Every structure is written in C-alpha cells, then in structure tokens.
C-alpha cells in the first residue's frame, strides 16, 4: 500500500458501537420504567411527537459518543451528519416505497419460514443494504476524508442509523404514535440491527478502497449484510411471537431486543477481529 501516514486502529469506534448498544438498552429501560410507573397520558399530537423524538434517540446516542471520543484524528462532523442524512433520505425516497408499495412485502413475506428468509434477503435485505452502501459509496467514499479502512465502518454506521431513524419515524407516523413501552423497544431493535448490518458493509467498503480486493469482494459484503438482515428478521419474528395461554397472550418484545443486542455485539466483535487481523497483516507487509 502506498501509505503516506501511519495506519492505526481507531479504538473508539468499537467503544462507540458498544456504548450505543449499552446506552440504548439503558434508555429503553428508563423509558419503560417511566411508562410503567407514571403511566403518562398523551394527546394524539403529543403521542406522535414523543414517538418521533424517541425515534431520533438511537442516532443521537451514537453521534454523541462518537464525537466525544473522536478526538485524535476527528472525522468532519458535517460529513458524518451528511451521510446519516443521506441514509435517511434514501430510506424515505427509495427504500420504504420500494419495499412497502412496490413489493408489498407485508402482504406475502410472512407466509412461511422459507418465504420469510428468502424474501427477506432478496427484497428487504438487498434493498436496505444497497441503499446504505450507496449512501457511502456515492458520497464520502471518493473524498480525501475517507482515508482509512475503518472509516468505512464509521460512515456506513452513520448511514445505517439514518436509515433506521427514518424507518422508525415512518412506523411512528403510520401508527399515529406508539405505546412508549413497546414503541421504544421496537425503535431500539431497528436501530441496533441496521447499525450492525451497516458495519458489515462498512468493513468491506473500507477494504475495497485501500486494498487490492477481488471483483467479488464488495458484492460479497452486500450479500453477507443482506443475508444477516433477512435471517435476523426471520429470527425476530420467531422470538417475538406472542405466547398464548388460557390466561391470554404474553408479548415477547423484550426477546426481540435481546436478540438485536446479541446480534449487534456479535457483529461488532466479528468486524473488530477482522479489522485487527487486517491491520496486522498490512503492518507486517510494510
């Protein structure tokens, strides 16, 4: 590699990812506790506004942690926010209309296990992962600010959180607001999952730019992210399925949050290991 400056690992990226997971779990717990203890009463407008505010929280948590720790060689704030916004715009303008209106995924996707997995990967997975990839590939990727392999993870996570934020706002608005307890869990699950899948794409993007990867490299990254996306949605449907008993139905939304946290932690750990191995091999080859 033609390196003009030292290669280093931005250790805080992993801390940011883990802090996002822990911070979100904490926030969900706080909102849930407040909802159960105070049982606030909302008007339709305040319910909607509260839901929209909650939808913005996951991205805010990540951005705050990111900027607090990104001191050594800071990424331009405007660029990270711009990619976050671009991810959201692509979700609103292309992703959601495509999945909901063109493919009408809700109409046929939950037919059976096979359909949920295959349809989830081909339609939802590829649409979402391609758009998050595009938010990075056609904006910051060719800029001089994208100057390290780990920048791929940073910007792809920003795009993923932008996408998740719009998915959550759309969910809140379509339902005229959400119940605080179950609503915040859903919001956290979507944010954690989208950030995790974006991290995979980001790792592949970073290596695609700075190393001599084969032609199949980036398609492999998108396919992996789309597969994780589709399989996660199937698993989430299973673990959150209500338990029916003679005393009524029990909601299992907490199981969905636990699954999302495990997937996010696992994905972060996997990417961390891959990046470290990659950096070691680069340094060994210098």
């Amino acid at each position, binding site marked *: *590699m*033609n*390196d*003009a*400056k030292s*290669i280093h690992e931005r250790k805080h990226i992993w801390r940011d990812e883990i802090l996002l997971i822990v911070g979100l779990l904490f926030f969900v717990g706080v909102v849930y506790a407040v909802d159960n203890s105070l049982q606030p009463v909302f008007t339709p407008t305040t319910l909607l506004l509260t839901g929209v505010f909650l939808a913005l929280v996951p991205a805010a948590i990540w951005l705050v942690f990111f900027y607090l720790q990104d001191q050594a060689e800071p990424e331009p704030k405007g660029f990270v926010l711009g990619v976050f916004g671009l991810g959201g715009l692509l979700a609103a303008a292309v992703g959601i209309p495509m999945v909901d209106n063109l*493919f*009408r995924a*809700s*109409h*046929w996707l*939950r*037919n059976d296990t096979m*359909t949920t997995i*295959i*349809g989830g*990967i*081909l*339609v939802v997975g*590829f*649409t979402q992962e*391609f758009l998050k*990839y595009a938010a990075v*590939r056609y904006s910051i990727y*060719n800029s*001089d600010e*994208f*100057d*390290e392999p780990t920048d791929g993870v940073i910007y792809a996570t920003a795009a993923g959180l932008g996408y998740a934020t719009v998915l959550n706002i759309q969910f809140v608005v379509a339902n005229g607001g959400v119940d605080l307890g179950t609503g915040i869990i859903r919001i956290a699950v979507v944010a954690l999952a989208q950030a995790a899948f974006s991290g995979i794409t980001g790792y592949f993007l970073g290596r*695609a*730019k*700075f*190393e*001599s*990867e*084969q*032609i*199949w*490299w*980036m*398609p492999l990254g*998108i*396919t992996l992210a*789309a597969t994780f996306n589709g399989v996660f949605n199937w698993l989430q449907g299973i673990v959150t399925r209500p338990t029916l008993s003679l005393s009524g139905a029990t909601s299992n939304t907490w199981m969905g949050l636990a699954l999302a946290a495990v997937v996010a932690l696992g994905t972060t750990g996997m990417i961390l290991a891959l990046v470290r191995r990659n950096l070691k091999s680069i340094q060994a080859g210098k």
Partner: protein
Amino acid sequence: MANKQTSLGDRFAEMTVVALTVIALIAGWFYKSSIENASLAFNAEGISAQAPKGWLQVEPTGNEILHTVDIKSTGFGATYVIQKIPTTQEASSSEVASLLSLSHAQNLLAFRILDQREVTVYGRDAYEISYVFIESNPDLTHDQLPSVVRGTDYIFMNSEHAIVATFQSDEKNYDLDMGRFLTFLKSLSF
C-alpha cells in the same frame, strides 16, 4: 494513507454491486409473484378455476359457489366471489347487471356505479360493472376507519345461468390486486 482506487475490486465494485442488487431484486420479484400467484384447483357445479392459495375460504351463501378473501391484505381484504344465478333463456346480461346493481345498492354502504359496459374477457362475451362502496362489514374488531372499496363484476351468460365473477379490493390496492384477479379470471371455465 493516500486514496488508492486502483484495485480491480474497487474499480468494478460499483458495477458488480449494482448488477447483483438488480439481479437479487428481479429474483425477489419473481419469488413474490410465485407466492402471490400460487393457486388451488376449485371445482363446483360445473365451474372450475384456479383459486388463490392461502386465502380464507368463506362459507358461500345464496347463489355463491366460491367466496375467498385475502386476509393478509391491508384495509379491506381482496375478495373473489363466483355466483351461479339461474336465469331464463331470454335473459340478457344487462338485465342480470341491473338485478346485481339493485342487490349491491341494498347491501353495500354508499354504493355507486362507476362504469358498466359490454366487454370481451379472454375470448368470452361479458358485461362489466365497476363500482365503489364503503366497507360495510360490521366487524367490531376493526380499530380503523372504514375503507373505500372498489369492485368489479363480470357477468357471463351460460344457457340458463349467469356466472358472475366478482372482485372487490381496498381502493388503495385495487390496481395492484387486479392483475392477480385477471389470472384467476383467465382460469375460470364453465
């Protein structure tokens, strides 16, 4: 670390990723179509058709011989009904259409006829009535506003019977659901 954009993977990533995504979405579209167009053979009283698979079969009433509803639809579920109405040899399709319209007006809320005309459906002469009404099924479990429903009846005269194929769907989904109904109509034989 200088920007390096000379690798094969990087140069062709743009094209390969776009191509892969397009292929995946096309495959997804075909997969979706295969799921939505999956059908079950239906045969009763000399009438056969390929009815949609996985839809709710409602107990037919009156002259109905098939009544099937897509419970996964949003809003008013897409509904296919086949009726076999006894007529005289001299009865015309427009007379049957008048009777049907009267029946709809009595049973459906805010019923309005949008259009009616003679048409040819897959080589068979038919009379088409297009109409609209407000969802009037008194289902107390629906926690949403009543839907505006669009419907179309195709009336086929067959010696001493009129075969009526009805399609009703939420106004928002009507155009998208019509393609599936036309496949069903094509399979209809009597």
